[in-house]
């Protein structure tokens, strides 16, 4: 089980030893299973980004430790010898296209592997593979990344991370600012990487519909603590609790609670449109059969 990600009593304090000291993570213990598609949700400032940045040791814990791929990260971990870990854990930040800088798409994607000492030839091959994975046409290779559309630029940035062949991919709000088609393309890509490349996907998101549509596990954070960890059904079954966390419900569940408030006796909190339609159909047609 050395492939799991394990947080053991991790606390992270920003600006430690100053009057501004603030616990961004407060005694967090959690295990993220290998091969899972885990969504991390919580309102702004709840500690989501701080949590995921510990997984590739961008941040080190103030106390406690994290085990990732047999590697332990603790308060004494230095930035030496982290290459292997960071190769395993790919991190796609918000608006990753802001990090593009090379003259051509292929050079930008090759930058990562070359940085890890892969030969020019192998880096090119890895970059070409990554372009295929994200669905970028090969005739874009020699174009400037800055001439591409927003959705394409984002895919170049993600390909740059995938070219390092990580086993864990962390996506921090990967669809922010994209139109519905771009949004779906990126989320479907995440699913494909999970299903076909068997990657562990960790998704930080505000989009509850994506949580329902794509995630198998959900971690809910509030004030630096993990307050719930379960599957989407378990997380969203209690609308009042979800609201108390300053979170939204998935659209279908939200609409269902409005129907219930209006006196429509739905029995479950449906998380998808199909389930909501089933529930409504049952009420409407079930009644007709009795007549």
């Amino acid at each position: 089980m050395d492939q799991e990600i394990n947080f053991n009593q991790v606390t992270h304090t920003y600006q430690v030893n100053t009057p501004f000291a603030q616990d961004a993570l407060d005694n967090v213990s959690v295990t993220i299973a290998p091969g899972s598609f885990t969504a991390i949700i919580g309102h702004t400032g709840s500690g989501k980004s701080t949590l995921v940045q510990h997984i590739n040791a961008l941040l080190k814990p103030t106390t406690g430790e994290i085990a990732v791929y047999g590697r332990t990260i603790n308060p004494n971990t230095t930035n030496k010898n982290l290459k292997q870990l960071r190769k395993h854990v790919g991190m796609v930040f918000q608006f990753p296209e802001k990090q593009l800088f090379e003259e051509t798409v292929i050079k930008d994607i090759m930058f990562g592997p070359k940085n890890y000492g892969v030969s020019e030839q192998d880096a090119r091959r890895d970059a070409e593979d990554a372009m295929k994975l994200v669905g970028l046409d090969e005739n874009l290779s020699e174009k400037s990344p800055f001439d591409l559309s927003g959705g394409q630029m984002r895919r170049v940035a993600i390909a740059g991370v995938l070219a390092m062949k990580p086993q864990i991919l962390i996506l921090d709000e990967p669809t922010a600012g994209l139109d519905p088609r771009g949004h779906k393309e990126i989320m479907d890509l995440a699913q494909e990487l999970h299903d076909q490349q068997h990657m562990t996907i960790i998704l930080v998101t505000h989009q509850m519909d994506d949580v329902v549509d794509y995630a198998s596990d959900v971690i809910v954070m509030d004030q630096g603590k993990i307050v719930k960890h379960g599957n989407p059904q378990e997380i969203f079954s209690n609308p009042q609790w979800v609201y108390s966390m300053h979170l939204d419900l998935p659209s279908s569940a939200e609409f269902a609670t409005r129907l219930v408030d209006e006196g429509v006796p739905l029995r479950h909190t449906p998380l998808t449109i199909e389930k909501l339609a089933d529930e409504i159909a049952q009420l409407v047609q079930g009644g007709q059969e009795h007549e």
Partner: protein
Amino acid sequence: MKDIIQIKNISFNYPDQPLLFDKLSMDVHEGEWTAIIGQNGSGKSTLARLIDGLIVLKSGQIVVDGLTVNDENIFEIRNKIGMVFQNPEDQFVGATVEDDVAFGLENRQVPREEMHRIVEKSLRQVGMWEFRDRIPANLSGGQKQRVAIAGIVALSPKIIILDEATSMLDPRGRQEILSLVNEIKKQNKLTVISITHDIDEAAGADWVIVVNNGAIVEEDKPDNIFGDIEKLESIGLSAPFTSQLMTALKARGIDSHSQYLNDERLITWIKKLISTK
């Protein structure tokens, strides 16, 4: 109804690129909320920049509140238009929230006493008066957008253009900003143009213009636009939640025989179905 913005046969292209708009025409009615929707790269934001004179037409004419957009009128036109962009951080100049809202008034040499009064009124209107001494950079995304809106309201424009102003906010923040702008629109009798790919935002508009590849595909009331899910999807957009639910119900033999219902009307219809079963 008066057309506060008239766009007549405009053509435009960016340097070394093909024509984005080729003889495009459209009007915006005064006092309405007009949503311009389309996917990334469809030309929506370019349109907003042309209206505000930030970039220059190749041919054709844009008239804003009776004035043609040109070098001579540009400052008067910009006084009539307030633009809210996607990322308010790109526009912050003041050290505090209060200073930031005052900036535009200082630029217009508004007397000090009056400036104080306007800044307070504007910040109160967006619910950010308590935050007047804070540093804008330290606010949440929704709060920043409120401050940006206060800065615009302070200059009492006739038109507010939201250029994907809510796309970086979470759903709740998005809803709050939209209700706020709607409230201000009513109180200050404004015209709102919202450039967006958030379909649920567009569903609340008075008039919807669908843009694709620099051309108007369709313009109509939301009810008539959102009935056709396939068409929306074919140009990279999605259908509003209620349209998707109506389609799912229809597949189960429950047909409203309506093209489109918004949230409230759909709930009313479902209640009626169940009570008369």
